[in-house]
Every structure is written in structure tokens, then in C-alpha cells.
């Protein structure tokens, strides 16, 4: 049986460094190529030596697909394509292709210029890498080669995030990337049709969470910010530059406008402006409201939100600052946090998930004393709030997607093992399908039962239709006779005559003959007559003929009578039928073996 193999190189029972290898129908595909936020050593990139120890990856991979521009999904891309070596096509959606290089460049700058790492990819490498990218449109089927085709679906989550369906023949895999089933202020909800893939590879960040209604969350968030501002406190919202940042910006922007608030809102990083530009452009990827109103006013043209300068952090009075990165592990958000942590009027709102080991994770778990680099400690006095704003599907959303796509098997990645375990149980219980959750480097194998397409000749089909009523009845299977020809990788079902002609073979007939002894005192013709009347009474609806040459024909079965030499009352019946009439022939032979009923004249 054919198999589909899925091997996560990253994101297997883990969040970060998404990189999943799929081999389906003889094709090898890499889904995402991300980096890990929690590590600064070799572990931050996926282990490409799993694919090949030495040499380039090109010959082992048919294509690479990037679901969206978050670094944990695309951060290792230049490393893989330029430093390890890959020349094949890389697929991503248009917005992803536009925004991805900005983020990669930013990432490179931080690692190389700030941390002083060497042996890292260069700007040129990013550019070279982006040259290999083939852009995708939503719902566009792209043929990677003759057999492999991919198709993108809308995934919500961030601008340009896509779910990908990978199809070889009738086998298919859907990889969700990160997705969101509830629409928000700037993005719509993920949607997929009933494509019934063999495996649905889904993220499971929030495997055990069912979130409150988003309006509740929004209201809570705005209330917390508002209260803190009214107290005169400063609010720090650590975000990743793109994605949630825009969502929260729109939220605060509209709120500020409605409530006529004056406190400044700052956005900390320069790259946002560049990215916001793309947000303004890719209106078709946003939600209904923005799509409909952008003619009057593009929602991404903020009035109240200004660029942040480092010196502003010491300004007196209330303010709201969005700063990157989102988990407080480095950069500006950490600097501002250090400055503001001492004042209990201030507040930090963590709007999303924090990976273990980051400061974000620590303070959320209630740690009030932090050890910083250089043995110093930091007292955390400011309020720490958590609002789940990250645009991942919650447990309910994952279930909903499964219901929409109706996969035959599930595979969970991008989540914590214990939580996955829980969701796995739920999925198996509710949908009664197999659910896998391989760890990194572990291979999950799913055997598929692909349907094999066979061409059928029109003549044959028409003949069959003429025989048994016009409409195929879905409730009843029907048998048809034909010849299956396998020729040059294609299958064809044709009538036997045509098959003979095509293959240049002569037709051979196969006939069965059988003798049946019968006790009957009458003369031969009489017996034959008796048989004729008997069969006529038994087999209604068949053509039975009494031919003048002393035979009885039932359809194509010939019956002859001859008396045996020694005993005239023992008649020997000769039955002969062709291979096609096997059923009727054997039925007749058993019938005649029972003898003729005495009541016949």
C-alpha cells in the first residue's frame, strides 16, 4: 500500500522552528523553514543533516512551501537555500513574499550587527533566496511538476497566511501553518473546502484552550489600557512587529477615536512603517469591513499612532507603547520593560504566547524577581496582564477546521506535547480518526488507499447503460464486464472485443461441457420435449428454444439428449455453455441433476 510519511524537523511537539518534511507519492516537500526563538546556538535552525549529510538539498526536495512570514516559519529559509544549498522552487503567497525579506533582514541585523555573530546569512543571501520564490494566489492550483500540485487557502492569522493543500494523484495532505478560525479586526477567518485530505497537519498552539468571545477580550483589553492611562501609568505591549501589532493598533486607534483620548500611542520599530505599507496594499487579504471601507479610509492609515523614539520612554505622563519582540527576550521591548518595571502604576500586557525560557514566560508565571545578564536582578513591580490575542485557532477552532476539511488522519504539530495529548484524545473520540503527534525527527507513517482512475471506453459504458436502466443507483453496486488494459502507465477499461483488436489477439472461446445422467423412460425426443417444458416453467424470462436439430437452447447453452447404450431409460444429457454463461450453466446442470418432475407430460 502507498504511504505518506511526515517527519517534523521542528515544531514536532514543540512551538518554534516549524519545519516539516512530507513525502507523498514519491515527492518530498518541505513545509515551512523556521527558526526557534528560545535558542541562540545551532538548535535555532532545523537539522537539515537529517535530509542529507553532505551536499545540496535540491535533489532531495521537490519544493519548499512557506505558510506565512513569521520568523518561526521562515527564519531559516536563507540559511537553508543559500548556506545548505537548495535551488528548487519556494512557494509563498504574495504578501508573504513582500514582507518576509523585511523580517529576515531585521533578524539578520539583530543577530549579526547587535550580537556580533559570524557565519550567518548575509543580505545578499536573503535577496538570492527571495529570487527562488514563486508566489501563490489563493485557491490557485499550481503544478509544481506533472504530478505534484499545491493550492493555497486563506488562513487568517497574519496577512498572507495560507493553508496549503499538497496533492499527488488522489493522495493529498493539507498543512495549515498557523491559522485562526475567528475573524478579528483586520483579518478574516480561515476557510477550507471539504477536500478530505489523507492527512491534515494542524498547528495546536492552543490545544487546551477555548477562548472567550473575542469581543469580551477586546473589551477587557481596552478597559485595562484605559484604566491604566487614566491613572497616569505607562502601558507596554510587547508584540511581534507584524500580525497582532496591526490588530491591536486598529483596536486602539478606533478606541482612541471614539473616546477622544489624547495620550500618545507609539509604535517602536521602523520596519513597521515599511510593513504597514504592505498592509495598505494587500487589502484583499483582510476582512470584510476593511475591504469594504478602504475606499473612504484605509484602516491602516493610523491617525493616533506615531513612531517611537528611544528617548520617549523617559517622558512623563501616560503613554502606550507597542514594542518588539513579543516575548520580551531581547530588543526594544526588553529595554523599555527594564525601565518601567519598577513602577506599579505601569502595566505590561502580553498579548500572546510566550515560549519557555523567555522573560515573558517568566513574568507571566508570576516571577517577581528576574535575573538579568551580568548577575543583576530586576524587581518587577508593574502589573502584568495576559490577554490571549494571538491569532491561533483554539481547541474549538481546530475541531471546526477538522469538521470542514474532513481528513482521514490528523497530525498535530506546533504545540506542547501534553496539550497535544489532550486534544488528540478529543479528536479521536469525536471524529474517530487516527491522530498522530510525532516529535522532532520522528516519522509518522500513514497508509493511504488511493483510488486508481481508470479510463472507460464510451462504447462500453453506453452498452452497459442500455442493458441495465439509465441511471446509476448509488445504493446498489452493479457489475459490468470488460477488459482492463494496462499500457504505458495508463489504465483502460474496454469491451473485450476492442481489447482483442487493440492487442491484436485472436479470440478464444472457452466452453464447459457436462454430462448429466437422467432416469427417464421416454424416448429421446420426448425427453427433450419434457426438458423443454420443464425449463420453460422454471426459467421465466429467458429465451428457451427447441431447435429442429434435436437440441434445446437456453440463451446460448445447448442441451442435447442421447440414450445410453445399455439402458434406454437412462438418458445422458449433454450440456455445453460458454465461459460467460457460467452462472446459468451451472445452475442448469444442478437443476437437471435433480431430475425431471414426474408431473410433466
Amino acid at each position, binding site marked *: 500500500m502507498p504511504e505518506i510519511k511526515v517527519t517534523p524537523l521542528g515544531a514536532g511537539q514543540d512551538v518554534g522552528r516549524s519545519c516539516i518534511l512530507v513525502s507523498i507519492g514519491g515527492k518530498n516537500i518541505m513545509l515551512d523553514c523556521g527558526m526557534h526563538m528560545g535558542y541562540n546556538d545551532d538548535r535555532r535552525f532545523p537539522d537539515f543533516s537529517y535530509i542529507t549529510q553532505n551536499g545540496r538539498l535540491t535533489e532531495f526536495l521537490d519544493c519548499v512551501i512557506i505558510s506565512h512570514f513569521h520568523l518561526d516559519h521562515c527564519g531559516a529559509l536563507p540559511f537553508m537555500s543559500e548556506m545548505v544549498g537548495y535551488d528548487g522552487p519556494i512557494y509563498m503567497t504574495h504578501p508573504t513574499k513582500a514582507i518576509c525579506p523585511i523580517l529576515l533582514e531585521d533578524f539578520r541585523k539583530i543577530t549579526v550587527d547587535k550580537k556580533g555573530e559570524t557565519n550567518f546569512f548575509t543580505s545578499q543571501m536573503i535577496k538570492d533566496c527571495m529570487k527562488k520564490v514563486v508566489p501563490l494566489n489563493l485557491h490557485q492550483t499550481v503544478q509544481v511538476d506533472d504530478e505534484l500540485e499545491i493550492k493555497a487557502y486563506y488562513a487568517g492569522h497574519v496577512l498572507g497566511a495560507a493553508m496549503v493543500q499538497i496533492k499527488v494523484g488522489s493522495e493529498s495532505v493539507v498543512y495549515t501553518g498557523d491559522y485562526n478560525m475567528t475573524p478579528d479586526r483586520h483579518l478574516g477567518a480561515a476557510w477550507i473546502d471539504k477536500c478530505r485530505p489523507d492527512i491534515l497537519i494542524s498547528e495546536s498552539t492552543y490545544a487546551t484552550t477555548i477562548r472567550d468571545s473575542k469581543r469580551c477580550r477586546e473589551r477587557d483589553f481596552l478597559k485595562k489600557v484605559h484604566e491604566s492611562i487614566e491613572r497616569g501609568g505607562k502601558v507596554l505591549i510587547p508584540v511581534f512587529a507584524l500580525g497582532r501589532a496591526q490588530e491591536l493598533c486598529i483596536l486602539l486607534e478606533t478606541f482612541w477615536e471614539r*473616546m*477622544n483620548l489624547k495620550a500618545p500611542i507609539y509604535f517602536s520599530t521602523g520596519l513597521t512603517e515599511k510593513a504597514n505599507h504592505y498592509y495598505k496594499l494587500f487589502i484583499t487579504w483582510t476582512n470584510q469591513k476593511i475591504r469594504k471601507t478602504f475606499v473612504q479610509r484605509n484602516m491602516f492609515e493610523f491617525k493616533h499612532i506615531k513612531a517611537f523614539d528611544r528617548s520617549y520612554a523617559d517622558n512623563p505622563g501616560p503613554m502606550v507603547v507597542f514594542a518588539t519582540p513579543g516575548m520580551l527576550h531581547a530588543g526594544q521591548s526588553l529595554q523599555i520593560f527594564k525601565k518601567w518595571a519598577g513602577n506599579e502604576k505601569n502595566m505590561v500586557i502580553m498579548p500572546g504566547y510566550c515560549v519557555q525560557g523567555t522573560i515573558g514566560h517568566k513574568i507571566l508565571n508570576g516571577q517577581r524577581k528576574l535575573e538579568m545578564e551580568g548577575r543583576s536582578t530586576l524587581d518587577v513591580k508593574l502589573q502584568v496582564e495576559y490577554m490571549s490575542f494571538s491569532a491561533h485557532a483554539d481547541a474549538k477552532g481546530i475541531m471546526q477546521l477538522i469538521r470542514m476539511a474532513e481528513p482521514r488522519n490528523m497530525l498535530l504539530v506546533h504545540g506542547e506535547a501534553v496539550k497535544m495529548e489532550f486534544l488528540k484524545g478529543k479528536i479521536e473520540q*469525536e471524529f474517530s480518526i487516527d491522530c498522530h503527534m510525532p516529535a522532532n525527527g520522528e516519522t509518522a507513517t500513514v497508509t493511504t488507499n488511493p483510488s486508481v482512475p481508470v479510463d472507460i471506453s464510451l462504447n462500453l459504458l453506453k452498452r452497459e447503460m442500455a442493458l441495465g436502466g439509465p441511471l446509476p443507483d448509488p445504493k446498489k453496486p452493479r457489475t459490468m464486464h470488460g477488459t482492463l488494459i494496462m499500457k504505458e502507465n495508463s489504465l483502460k477499461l474496454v469491451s473485450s472485443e476492442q481489447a482483442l483488436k487493440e492487442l491484436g489477439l485472436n479470440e478464444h472461446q472457452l466452453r464447459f461441457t457436462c454430462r448429466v445422467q437422467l432416469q427417464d423412460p421416454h424416448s429421446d425426443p420426448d425427453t427433450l420435449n419434457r426438458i423443454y417444458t420443464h425449463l420453460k416453467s422454471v426459467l421465466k424470462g429467458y429465451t428457451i428454444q427447441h431447435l429442429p436439430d434435436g437440441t434445446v437452447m437456453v440463451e446460448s447453452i445447448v442441451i442435447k439428449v442421447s440414450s445410453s447404450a445399455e439402458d434406454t431409460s437412462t438418458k445422458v444429457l449433454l450440456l455445453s455453455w460458454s465461459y460467460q454463461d457460467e452462472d446459468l450453466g451451472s445452475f442448469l446442470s444442478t437443476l437437471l441433476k435433480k431430475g425431471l418432475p414426474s408431473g410433466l407430460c
Partner: protein
Amino acid sequence: MAAHLKKRVYEEFSRVVQIPQEEAPAKKLRLSKPSKSAALHIDLCKATNSTDALQYLLHFARKPVEVESVEGVVRILLEHYYKETDNSVRLKIASLLGLLSKTQGFSPDCIVDDAINTLNNEKSHQVLAQLLDTLLVIGTQLPESPTVRQRLIEMACKHLSDTYFGVRNKCLKLLGCLGMADTPLTKDNDGPGASLGGVRDIQSIISDFFGDQDPRVRTAAIKAMLQLHERRIKIHEIIYDQACRLLSDDYEQVRSAAVQMVWVLSQLYPESIVPIPSSNEEIRLVDDAFGKISHMVSDGSWMVRVQAAKTLGSMLQVSHHFLEQTLDKKLMSDLRRKRTAHERAKELFTSGEFSSGRKWADDAPKEKLDTNTVNLIASGACGAFVHGLEDEMFEVRIAAVEALSQLARSSASFAEKCLDFLVDMFNDEIEEVRLQSIHVLREISTHITLREDQLDTVLAVLEDSSRDIREALHELICYTNVSTKECIQLALLELLKNLNKYPTDRNSVWKCLKFLGSRHPTLVLPLVPELLSTHPYFDTPEPDMDDPAYIAVLVLVFNAAKSCPTMPALFSDHTFRHYAYLRDSLSHLVPPLRLPGNGLDLVDSRCGSGSVESAQLFLQQSLNRVSTIQNLEAPGAQDLLNFTIRDLQRLGELQTELAGAADFCATYLRCQLLLMKALQEKLWNMAVPLCLKQNVTATAAAQQILEETYKLEFLYSGLESRQVATIHHVRLQAKALQLILTARTRQGLDPLISSCEKFLQDIESFQRLFVAELPHLQDSFVDKLLELMPRLSSCKPVEMVKILLATLRLSGLLQLRLPEQIHRATATIIEPTGESDNPLRFTTGLVVALDIDATLEHVQDPQNTVKVQVLYPDGQSHVIHPKPSDFRKPGPDRHRLITQVYLSHTAWTEPSQIEVRLLLAYSSSSTSLSSSSASKLGWSDSIDSLPPPEAAVEGTIPFSKPVKVYIMPKPARR
């Protein structure tokens, strides 16, 4: 669709109008009659190829065919049909047959045989489908013929096994439209279900196609079943399972139809018991259906989601705990088997399967659950409304809000629960949704009391920049109950903030506070000293009486004081003075109070109990008194009328309930008085040249009477045909008077003859219109005229005038009978207020927009009748027709006009005032009796085509006080 409809109405209308106006088209039609079928025949014979024939047919289809010639045409068409080889032509003929059999008055039973015949011989699938469609038309035209019906159904059954989906579709449609529940059918043997054979029920035949391979056919099958239901045939319960299976179909149209089907069944058999798969539990069918439809709210297609959300709202029989599930997102928390529910549910609830996402790390996994627990309701159904309200498409959100409101109105506890969700919707990003949820909350607000935090969220919306939202919110606050005095304070504070920010909301805010006060007197009481800023020892400065905020506070306090007698004791002196002032100036906002001192008597005299009845009695008595005047020249009659008119006017002012009726009577009597004065003895005894002056007054009187009668007819709603007849009668009298006066002044005969003819026509039309009312008009002017009619129509104009004069002077006063309710249409312009001293400056040649905000009461069909008139100082006047969308309907018989009027003028040297007023347009040709047809007429009337100026002035009644606006067009600078 709407545009299409509109166009069609317009077409119909234009046809109706043109035929009576000019006789020519009717004649033309008659001419073409005999040639119609013949022409077709010739055309079709001429046609050399199928394209030509098709062209002829298309051309032919554009014109209507008269009843008499339909049959002939059908014969010709059929004849051609048999000869025709081209499919498209046959298709067109088939569709024409259907069209023709719809002709009014034509009975299509004669073509049934032919149609069936053609059906049997037809090979093309498309034509077959069209023929079946034609048969459907024929079948629906002949509802009383069971034999035809039976034959058609048999035909349909026969073709059900066709391979083309269109044919199957049409067959199913035919079965749905014509099939009967009680007629068993013998299924033909060549169908796929041949083995089943025998006698079969129509529903099972249709339900066979629920499993068809083509989604379009599946949809058609469900639609056919729904059609059966619409025709009041009871659908079998067994269909339920099949319909439920279709809910998970791959195609959205099928799912959408299946949702409807499941809903229908749940309404038919709400109490049936259905088993839950994979367990031995059973639940009510309506609950099961509710669960399944809830599930569809998270469907992949938004059309289905809208459908499902809408449907949920009408499932009122659903059990409580199911209903509440829809607001719950937590899976299976108290949804265990009933037997074990109590002990297990609690434990489950506390163990918390899923975290809420509000707190960090509250989702640490706990021990695994018992897996053999059974969901009573598919888990997807939980939180259906939570999903619906969060949906991406605002259509779904609106549908969900509407469904919530319907369910909440029928269940108080559900209303309580959905409150939070509705309040959350106030923050929706689309204004329409916000507005809708505010309306819904208002509708269910009788069930609920807002908590402080909820009120907080509600009130936050007061800062919304959209006026509609704010006003809807004010309406909501009018109906809300709050629980604490802090809430009152909060509401007041926010409303004052709102007033400050948007001064135009003044009236609305005051009204809102009025209701807030009268609803919560006990909560307001402890706040009074603070609100009025009184101090136990010190006198506080008297607040400014013109401050809208202070008035707002007073409105709140006074309305609370109405049912709280202890409150006035807390008032300071100036409060009482202000009360007296406000009671007079804003009497609709400030209720009468029982105050110590002199105010008391006045209050009592103003509104004693039963005053309405006594006023009614008084009104009736006055009318009776007037009716004693038999002769118009009786002494003292004029005085009596004068007094009665005065009394009635005063009554109208005092008793607002009777204002309409009193006004109506007074106006009517004024007409009579004018008539009386005009017909005074001495005037008519003098020679013509001597009484020129009197003549002038009489002419003016006649003109005024005419105007007044139009007012009587169109300004008042609730008139019956009897009153209309009376009004027309007065109008006729006035016209007679005019005719007499014309005869006296003008020398020429020709104009006199024409006006005489016109008058005779008027009498005739009166007779035609009010045949039913004539018995009530005994002894009246018209009655006498009708008696003299033969003489009038034959005599000379001069003689006729004489007769008229005599009858006019002899005829008595027609007594007025009052209908139940008469309301006078009124309009108040709220904005512009006319108080501004700052002129509106603009450059000549350009336009300036003037915001107009007005309330209209008792105006029927304001979209068509209400116009804005702008009067410039130089006598120029413009009539502007507001857009239909500028009218809002906040309550019954109430409309609100918020529009912009564009002004422009040539340069002035200094600012001056223009007048703005509202006009009620009427068309003098249509009486208020035929107002229904008149409204149709107006609908198709396009906005840009204003009526010509003369007609407009003649056909409009100013019904609002004019408001003066100061404007200043500056000369353009070069």
C-alpha cells in the same frame, strides 16, 4: 431585484394611466387582434431557417396576446413545433406555450393533451425540461381539475429517470407544486426503483432524490418537499433522518435547503422523540433539530450560516438547557447523561477541561476524562450564537442578533443570559450591526435589569459619532431598568457628556431622562440634593435656566418627583420657579406635580380624570348645537358658528388627544361660515356693477373654502368615506359659488359655457365616487342638484346659474359626523432653530447645504408626500423632494426627516432671512379614498421629476411652522 420590481410596477402603472387618458391605444389593440395569430402564422411560414423563426418568436413574445386569440396562436405554435427540427426553436415554442397559458381568462385544459403528446415524442433534454415547465404552468392554472393533475404527475414520475439533471429538476418541481398527499402513485417500471414497484407515496418518490448524484437535483428535491409543505401537505416524520444527513452535504445549496427542511420538520413534530446515535438516549425532535441547525452556524459557507442563524430564531419550542448551550462555548460541561448529571457535572465543571484564555497558564492539563461520556448535543452546537456573533460576515452577525432577539423575547432567562453578548455587540465594527443590537436590546429590555458594568459598556456608545446610534441608544435608555443609584448617576453623567459633545441631541437626551426619572423615582431620590446642588445651610447660586444640561437634570428630577411625593421638599425656591417655567415651555417633558401652594389648583383643573370623555362629550354637543342651524340665513347662525369654532379651537389646544378631531370640525365649520357670509342676502339683491367689492370678497371666500377642503381631505388621517363625501360636498358648493361669480362678472359666454360643463362633470364624478354615501346626503345641495340634473344638463348657462344660486341658498348645513380617530398631520422643524444670528455665508453661484431635522406625525407615506419648501426674500420659492432614505421611522405614526437642502442665490448686499417649511403634497385627482393606488403611483415616481410649479403650489399644504434662516450669498471674488 428591487429595481426590477420597481420597473415592473412602473410599467404596469403606465399602462393603467395611458389607456383612460387617450382612447387611441385601445383601438390600435383591437385592430391588431385578428391579425395577431395570422401574422404569426405567416411569419413562421416565411422563416427559412431556425434563426429566423427564433427571431420571429422572440419578437412575438414581446407583445401581449388577447384572450380570444390565444387558442389560435397555440394551435399555430404546436403545428410549427411538430415540424421544427431545431432544438432552440422548439424550446422557445415550449416556453411560449407556458407563457400563453398564463393569459388571464384563458383556460389551458385544451392544450394539456397536446403538451403531453409533445412531451412523449421529445428527444432533446433541454426542450423536455422546458415542456415540463410549461406543464407546471398549465397545472397551476387548473387547480380544480384532479384528472389533469393526476396525468401531469404521472408524466413527471415517468421522466424522473431522465439522465439530464434539468429534466429531473423540473419533474421534482412539478411534483412539489402539484402532488397531493392522498393520491398514491404507481411508479413506472423503467425507473431505477423498479424493483420496489407498486403503489408509492409522492413524498417517498421525492425523498428518493435526496440521494441523487447531482447536487442540483438534490436541492430541487428538498425544495419540492418544502413546496409540498407550503401547500399544507403534512410531511412525514421519516424524512427527518434523510434531511439531517443532507446537512453534511458537500454543496452549500443543498445544505441551505436542508436547513430549511429540518426546520420545517422540527416545527411539525416538535415533541417526537428521536434517538441519539451511539447511545441509548432519546431527546425531543425539536431539540435535536435545534442542535443540528446550531451546528450549521459554523458551516463553511456564509450563505448557510445566515440561513441557519435566521432559522434558529424561530425555534421557540426548544428546551431551556439547549437554548442556553448556544451561548456557552465550553464543551460538554453540564451536558452529561441525565442520570449521572448531578454528581458528574459538578466535578467536571470544576476540573475545567479547557481554559478560557483570559488567564495565563490556567490550562495546565488535568487528569483525563472518562471517555464513554455521551454528548447530548453535538458539541459543535455549543456556542452557536457565540460563533454567529463573531462571524466574519456582518450578514451572519445581523442574522444572529435577530435570532437572539426572537428567542430572548420568548424566554426571560435566556434574555438575561444573552444580555452580555448583545452588549458586546455594541462594539462591533459595522454600524449596522451595532444599531441592530441596540434595537434588539431595547426590545427585550422588559426582561432585564442592567448591571453597572453593563450599563457602563452601553453608555460608552453614547460617544459614537453616528447620530442614528446615539438616538437608538437614547431610545434604549428610555426603556432600561437599572439596579442602583450609581447607575442613574452614571447614566446622567454620560448623557450630559453626550449633550455637551453633540448639542443637537438635546431633545432626545431630555426625553431619555424623562423616562429614566419616571422609571426609577426611588433611585433618583437620594441623588436629588447632589443633582440640584442644594445645601442644607447655604443658599447656592441659581443655575442658568437656559443651560440645556440644567434643564436635563430638572427633567430627570421632576419626572421622578411625580411618583415620589417626598421629593419636592428637597427643592429650593428657584426650583419651583423653574418648574413653573418648564411646565409651560416644555410641557411634554415635565409632568404635572402636586406641589404645595398655588400650583395645586391649576394642576388639578388641567388634568382631571375622565377629562377626555368630558371633552369628547363637549365636542359632540357643540356639533349637535350647530346642526340645529337649518337655514344658512337664520339669525344668529353666524354667531353660533363663530362661537363654536372658537370653542373647538380652544378644546383642541387643551386636549391633545382630541386636537385632530376638534381642528377638523373647526375647519369644517369655518368653511360653512365663509359660505354663509358669501351668500348673504343683500349681496345678491344688488345689481352687478354695484357690488364689485362684495364680489371680490365672495370670490376670495370661495377660493379659501376650496383650499380648506383640500386641507380637510389630505391633512387628516383616519377619515372614512362619509367624511370625505361631506368634504367634497363643501367643495362642490364652493365651485358652484365660483361659477355663479364668474357668470356675474365676466361678459363672454364661451368661458361660461366651458365652466358650466366642467361643473356638470364635477357633479357626475361626485355621484360616481360617493354612490354609497348618497343616502346620507338627503336634502343637501348635491341631492337637490341631482334631482335637477336632467334640467341642468339641457338648459342654457345663464339659467343654470340661476338654478344653482337658488339651490345653494336654500340648501341646509350638512351635519358632520365624527369618525373614531382623526389625527392631524403635523410637522415640527427641530433644526434649523431659527434662532441663530450668524448668517450662513456662501459664495454666489455655489451651493450651501442646510441641515434639516424635523419630526412628522401622522403622515402617511411621507416619502412621497413630504417636501421642503425654501422661500427666498425675493419671492422665489424652491420645492425640494427629500430622498426616501432621509426618512426614518422611530415609532408608529411618527417619522423623522433628516435631510440636507441645498441653497443658492445671486449675490445680496447684506444678509437676509429665508423661510424653510415643510409641505404636504397631494394630488387633487386622487382622493384619500384611493390613497392606496396613489401611494403606488408615488412609488414609481422618480425623484428628479418634480411636478410643474403651478401644480405643486396647488397641490401642497404647508403643514409646519416656517423657520427663518439667516443667509448671506457673497459675490464671488475674481
